[in-house]
């Protein structure tokens, strides 16, 4: 599946400092190729998360459109869009993403629960094994370290083997060892055919990425 953005724009209105309109993402066109790892870097506040959320169908653009194959995500009704996302787009949101009343296992099984897919427990086990968090299956998110939580979040996004994986700073505040681990996991996913988008500040990431984009004040610039 191919995810493309055409002239994607998102502006925010800031009332506080006089009513000025701030374009967080400006007329960005972009395609996410299958089976490769695409990296977006950029200064804080340059619009990376805004772009990623729009690509995930989680934030309606001010202008432009997002196409999954040739379906315009924001022309769909919420039910269809949610079903599409659940099935085809894995999202690793920035920051804390655990549901605190569920165990790690249940957190990872969430996409299966939401779509009514049964019998995903072995898949979840296998993912936890690969992420090195198998012995935490019964723990609650509150008991996890930042790195463990991030890996849980990635396992959740990968559970239903989505064709597209969007990860927002999955290595933020992780130590080198955990960073390397997460990056190689994403690399493996890309090698297995997934279209992976990695938004990160991490310098190391370049070594894993097939191509790198730089986001600068809402505009994307090809770096390599």
């Amino acid at each position: 599946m191919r995810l493309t953005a055409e002239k994607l724009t998102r502006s925010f209105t800031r009332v506080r400092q006089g009513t000025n309109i701030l374009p967080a993402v400006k007329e960005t066109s972009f395609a996410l190729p299958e089976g490769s790892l695409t990296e977006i870097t950029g200064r804080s506040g340059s619009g990376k998360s805004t772009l990623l959320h729009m690509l995930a169908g989680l934030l309606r653009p001010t202008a432009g459109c997002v196409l999954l194959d040739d379906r315009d995500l924001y022309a769909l009704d919420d039910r269809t869009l949610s079903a599409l996302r659940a099935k085809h787009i894995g999202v690793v949101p920035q920051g804390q993403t655990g549901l605190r009343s569920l165990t790690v296992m249940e957190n990872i099984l969430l996409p299966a629960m939401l779509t009514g897919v049964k019998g995903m427990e072995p898949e979840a086990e296998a993912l936890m094994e690969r992420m090195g968090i198998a012995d935490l299956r019964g723990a609650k998110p509150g008991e996890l370290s930042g790195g463990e939580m991030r890996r849980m979040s990635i396992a959740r996004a990968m559970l239903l083997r989505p064709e597209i994986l969007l990860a927002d700073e999955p290595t933020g505040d992780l130590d080198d060892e955990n960073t390397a681990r997460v990056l190689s996991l994403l690399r493996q996913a890309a090698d297995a055919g997934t279209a992976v988008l990695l938004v990160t500040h991490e310098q190391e990431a370049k070594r894993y990425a097939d191509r790198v984009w730089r986001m600068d004040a809402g505009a994307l610039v090809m770096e390599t």
Partner: protein
Amino acid sequence: MRLILQLSRKNLAGRPGRAAAMIALAAFLAFAIFAGSVVSMSLQRGLGTLENRLGADIIVVPASAKSQFNVNDILLQGNPGYFYMDREKLDKIAEREGVAAVSPQLYLASMVASCCSSRLQLIGFDPETDFTILPWVRESYRGEIGLYDILVGANVTVSGDYTLRFYGIDCRIVGQLEKTGSGLDNAVYANWETIEKLIEASEEKNLNKYSVKADSVVSSVLVRVADGYDIEQVLNDINLRVRKVTAVRASNMISGIAENLTRLSGVISLLIAGVWLLGLLIMMIAFSMMTQERKREFAVLRAAGASRRQLGALIFAEALIVCCAGAVFGIALAALIVWPFSTAIGSALGVPFLLPSLPTMLALMAATLAACAVAGVLISSISAVRIARQDTGLILREGN
């Protein structure tokens, strides 16, 4: 649907303190509406039954009896009443135009008997002419009411050998009356002959302050007015033509209580309404705060593929679980309090009090549960709409 219930149950279980607080609030609401309705209905039912039970259109008592108060006392509180008039008044009353039937009663004394927690009122009646007591014998007794045979009110505990001992005389219980929720439930009825013997026995034992000759006096005369006659006219006629008596319209005695009752029911309804309004408001705010605080979790659910509808359903489900669990606790608590203490509540309020029948009770429980479910939908509707509408992308970038 099962997933939604499962998830919401886990969410509640993950924050047991809050869930418990919300359930307690819901239980309080359920308690208020259920207990309040039961009390209201019990009052109405008690009054209705008492109205039927009186059976007579007019009650005639000695003028000296300051009728209203004493009669009310006897009927409702089971307080002792001692007033007597000549037996010849019975015939005088019977002679009046429009009187279809008369039957005398003799209030003897109230006494503590081994069987019972409250005082019993011994009442003599005439089985031959009676039209107010025998129709209400519960275990339809068809035989004669002979010497030392008694009929007892519903509050009298009937022991294995069916006897009660008064002043050393064993009396045989031949029937028990249906419950009225009033002082009549503590009455013991015997025929005139038995009452005479009991008076003699009490005098022998020096236990009777009032010396009465049972064959020459009566305490009250119950009157049934013939069809086609105006009760008020017959009543005035008796008051005018029969000396030293006061005729009271039976329904008047009750109408005083009925007024009180209407007022009491009004107060109860107002209280319930107030409690619900306040409770719903608090729960709505608390629920809204709780979901707003968790909006990031809901955003994560969206990112994992949940639709807006699913989020809304999740929030509704949580509120429904809380409210239904609360309803069950509240109803159970109310039942535990109202059932065993209904007699105490009745005498504390000083009005006839008769619990609704079991089917009515069950229907009331179901209605309470339904009301709580509706409350659940109400308190969560705002939260559900707000969370379902929120822009996931914006929430996810907050608080990083």
